[in-house]
């Protein structure tokens, strides 16, 4: 397990922010246990023990001592806060961003969104974060970025930030009214709804073309 020097306080991730997934799940949202579609961003934490780095090997998860059958990965644009951010408007939100990087969220498959997914999301070393933070001043519009992910050289995801239900600025504003964000806190703003399956030994590489990349290897059980 490798700690990460970039994220200092908390790593907040946004689930169900892929507009295609959100649209496709409308019927399911109306059934038990959800009963209605979410009205707010669906948020989860990646805990301290999950933080890892570019180049790190990601442990294959075990359950009761046995290697789990399947793991998945998604990549997200990550917003790194440069100053304290408390109750800010959408218009002002991007001023609080120190820079941008990438996060990989390795997890067990997302089978349900009903209860906090501690077993699926809190695996040691499962949240590698890019080693470089691109200064916010170099990114004029985060909505114009696209995150791509390759597994063993084959493209599995190509996710424009503009395809998300909620924008970077909207998420920063909404979250800043729930919890004060501190310098070094990170928000992963959204992942492809269909996470990519990975196998032991796979190489996972994500990039924002020409700007930043994040490379990890899936470890052996």
């Amino acid at each position, binding site marked *: *397990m490798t700690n990460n020097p970039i994220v200092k*306080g*908390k790593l*907040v991730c946004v*689930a*169900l922010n892929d507009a295609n997934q959100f649209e496709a799940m409308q019927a399911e949202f109306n059934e038990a*246990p*959800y*009963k*209605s579609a*979410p*009205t*707010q961003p*669906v*948020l*989860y*934490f990646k*805990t*301290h*023990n*999950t933080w890892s780095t570019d180049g790190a090997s990601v442990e294959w998860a075990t*359950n*009761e*001592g046995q290697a789990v059958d399947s793991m998945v990965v998604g990549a997200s644009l990550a917003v790194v806060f440069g100053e304290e951010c*408390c*109750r800010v408007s959408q218009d002002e939100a991007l001023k609080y961003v120190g820079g941008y990087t990438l996060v990989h969220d390795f997890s067990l498959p997302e089978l349900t*969104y*009903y*209860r*906090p*997914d*501690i*077993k699926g999301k*809190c*695996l*040691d070393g499962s949240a590698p974060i890019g080693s470089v933070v691109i200064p916010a001043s170099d990114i004029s519009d985060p909505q114009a970025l696209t995150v791509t992910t390759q597994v063993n050289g084959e493209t599995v995801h190509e996710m424009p930030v503009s395809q998300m239900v909620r924008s970077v600025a909207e998420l920063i504003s909404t979250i800043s009214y*729930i*919890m*004060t964000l*501190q310098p070094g806190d990170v928000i992963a703003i959204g992942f492809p709804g269909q996470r990519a399956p990975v196998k032991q030994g796979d190489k996972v590489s994500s990039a924002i073309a020409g700007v930043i990349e994040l490379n990890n290897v899936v470890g052996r059980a």
Partner: protein
Amino acid sequence: MKHARVLFTGSGQLNGAELDVTVEDSFATTGQLKSKTDGQLINESDVTWLSPIKEPGTIFALGLNYADHARELAFEPPKEPLVFLKGANTLTGHKQNAYRPDNIDFQHYECELVAVIGKEGKNISREDAMDYVAGYTVCNDFAIRDYLENYYRPNLRVKSRDSLLPIGPWLIDKEDVGDITNLRVTTHVNGELTQDGSTADIIFDVPFLVEYLSKIMTLKPGDMIATGTPEGLKDMQPGDKVVCEIEKIGALETYIVSEQEFYGDKY
């Protein structure tokens, strides 16, 4: 021993310093805390209490973990622990303010026994679990029921708000508490007893939870497990004083203020 952390607000060169102190038996009569650095005695009136955990790690909390509370909420007792996470932004100390959001109908306290991890470990067995616990404290795990949605429930909007996890007043070494399986858990609101339970009603106990969580992930010093609350929920309003107390551990006092008062210039 009881360990606390305070911000010194009295006059002199210590003003503004965060101090590690011990709380001796004499505190009840003298109101004095003892600096761990130099043994100096400090008056409680010269400090602001902070969270007793200096470097907070992962904050786990349990939902529906008392048999009586699960009944109160009309839930079947869970077969597996309902664990959720809280950010460190939620932490505040003894005798501090916690806020009630504007335009809501129901905010309630939850008095909880907290086990604080003292040693790193993974795949810890139930039998060895207590070796990894440093001690205990009390928390008040406030909830805003209006904000519940059926996604990662209880969601962060309900459970991870600034100031809504008062904790303390101190961390007490586990050896000084001994058996934790039948401790009285009470809450008083403005002096009235509103919650009165016992840790005997806990469904998943501390050794079970250490084993359960450490099978999923590495536990580290500073991680906290808030073990859930008994029945007896009541709405809170600005001006209320809430005291959460657990026998042999301590009594944690919190003042409810409005959102505007809490955030001041940032409101």
